[in-house]
């Protein structure tokens, strides 16, 4: 991704979180917890498991449709980050060729199954993480983390990081533009100029931090970032959690997908 794309991408994801749907209105803590449980459940399937992963697509699909998040946008982002997992996973079919299953006479090697399993898990976990932000907003997630007991210092780092990400990225973007404008090929993009640019950006960042600090002092900052309790867990939030947990439990421990397959096959047999 180029710088600009990356920058705009965050902006887009961020804007998705302002929508007003019932998914967006759930308590952020409920969504954070549900997402983490979802991730652990998906990851906990053994390496050759493929079939039982299918039902888990319901979770992101529901979040996406009810939360009015564009499918394409999420898919595109999943694809953009996929190379590392694919790069590691692609060795499985090459190295693990022992047959672990025979499907209507066609033997399937373990490597292909585990590779497919990695890809499915990858899609599920990444989209769940993206959807968490797209339906909760970054500040929402931070407030949730704070109320879930993460150190306040860490959470304030997240707040500042998020807030100044956009400011500094824009600053960096303008600097790159200025550099590229006056360098008509590679020499301008060399490591020396790079170090300078970063150095200047650093100095400006420190100056900015100083100004922010003064602004904070001017408004009574005493070492802690205070926060308002925004919401109490409502019935809807509890219901959402309960539904998620039972969904995860049922599909983790019972082989329902396969059962459905059997029943349907039985109908046609």
């Amino acid at each position, binding site marked *: 991704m180029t710088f600009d794309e990356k920058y705009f991408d965050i902006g887009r994801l961020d804007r998705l979180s302002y929508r007003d749907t019932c998914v967006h209105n759930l308590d952020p803590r409920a969504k954070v917890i549900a*997402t983490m449980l979802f*991730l*652990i459940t998906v*990851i906990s399937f053994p390496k050759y498991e493929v079939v039982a992963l299918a039902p888990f697509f319901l979770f992101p699909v529901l979040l996406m449709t009810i939360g009015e998040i564009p499918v394409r946008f999420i898919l595109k982002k999943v694809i953009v980050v996929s190379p590392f*997992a694919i790069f590691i996973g692609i060795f499985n079919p090459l190295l693990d060729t022992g047959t*672990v299953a025979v499907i209507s006479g066609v033997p399937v090697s373990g490597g292909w199954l585990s590779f497919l399993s990695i890809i499915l898990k990858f899609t599920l976990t990444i989209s769940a993480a993206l959807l968490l932000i797209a339906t909760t907003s970054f500040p929402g997630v931070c407030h949730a983390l704070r109320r879930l007991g993460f150190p306040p210092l860490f959470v304030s780092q997240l707040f500042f990081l998020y807030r100044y990400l956009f400011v500094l990225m824009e600053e960096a973007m303008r600097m*790159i533009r200025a550099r590229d404008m006056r360098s008509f090929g590679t020499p301008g993009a060399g*490591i020396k100029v790079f170090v300078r640019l970063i*150095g200047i950006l*650093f100095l400006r960042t420190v100056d900015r931090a100083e100004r922010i600090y003064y602004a904070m002092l001017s408004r009574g900052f005493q070492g802690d970032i205070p926060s308002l309790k925004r919401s109490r867990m409502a019935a809807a939030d509890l219901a959402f959690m309960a539904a998620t947990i039972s969904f995860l439990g049922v599909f983790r421990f019972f082989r329902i997908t396969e059962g459905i397959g059997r029943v349907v096959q039985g109908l046609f047999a």
Partner: protein
Amino acid sequence: MHMADALLSPAVGTTLWAGTVAVGGYASKKLKAQIDDRMIPLMGVLGAFIFAAQMINFTIPGTGSSGHLGGGMILAILLGPHAAFLVMASVLTVQALFFADGGLLALGCNIWNLGFYPCFLVYPLIYKPLTGGSKNPGRILVASIASAVVALQFGAFSVVMETLLSGKSELPLGAFVLLMQPIHLAIGIIEGFVTAGIINYVRGARPEILDSIAASRPLGAGISLKKVMMTFAVLAAITGGALSWFASTHPDGLEWSVEKIYGRGELPEQKHGIAPVLKDLQEKTAFLPDYNFKPAGNEPKKKEAVPVWPGIEAGTSLAGITGAAIVLGIIVLIGMGIRSFRGRGKG
């Protein structure tokens, strides 16, 4: 070099999360006791700085490819290990959430790999002794390169171990190490150059800034070696304990890697569909001395139905596939149904 959720097992993922949370808790406790509250916005904004800086590319001399700044080392030098660790953790959290770089479960691993090593291992044990508090640009350069290289080697090796212990990848240890470490050696050297360049630039341009950051960072920043080693030992014990538990309950995870390292030098043939892919890969992986894949293109003869993982074939049957297709179909229908219902509701 970000670890990905899909490659992790829950045991490895949660173990490293636990380690990261422990170190994070320790760091924030330390900071809270000693911090000058001027540091709070500074740390946050520096996180954003690392983020923005990572997005600026430069051309790596002689190669034409581009690199960018990693950040852990420079933060440790500027802020001291505790603050640097927290900043790195928040940078990686934002990456995980906004770019899905890695994922939420792998976040623990990533913070560990990219934050713990530079801040708590390399900074006190390599950078500080090598510079000895000197402001000499040459020493800073040497120390930065050494630190960045070591930190990245640790990080890369951890990625290898985390992947292998999770047992989702079939990559053999040797090959994996050969894939990861040399690349990260190169990246480390460049990161070292860049880190030193920035420190030296800042020192030249506005020396007072470095001094004022140094002055406002917690006294304990020059942490005692003993404490680091203690922490490290405790964490190693936790990790080791968890891993051995994992290894004993899921022997397959370790078994196959051991098997791959010492065992079958030769691997059976492949299915036809991937012959070209395989050939290509074979050429690309030719530098792995120990592993030669059998020439592809052999007619597939896969009748040796040896269940590697007993009970697994039960799930991966035709019934399973049918079931999965039906389930996915239903999910898509649900999704589309909600969409159109909503569309109608609005229109």
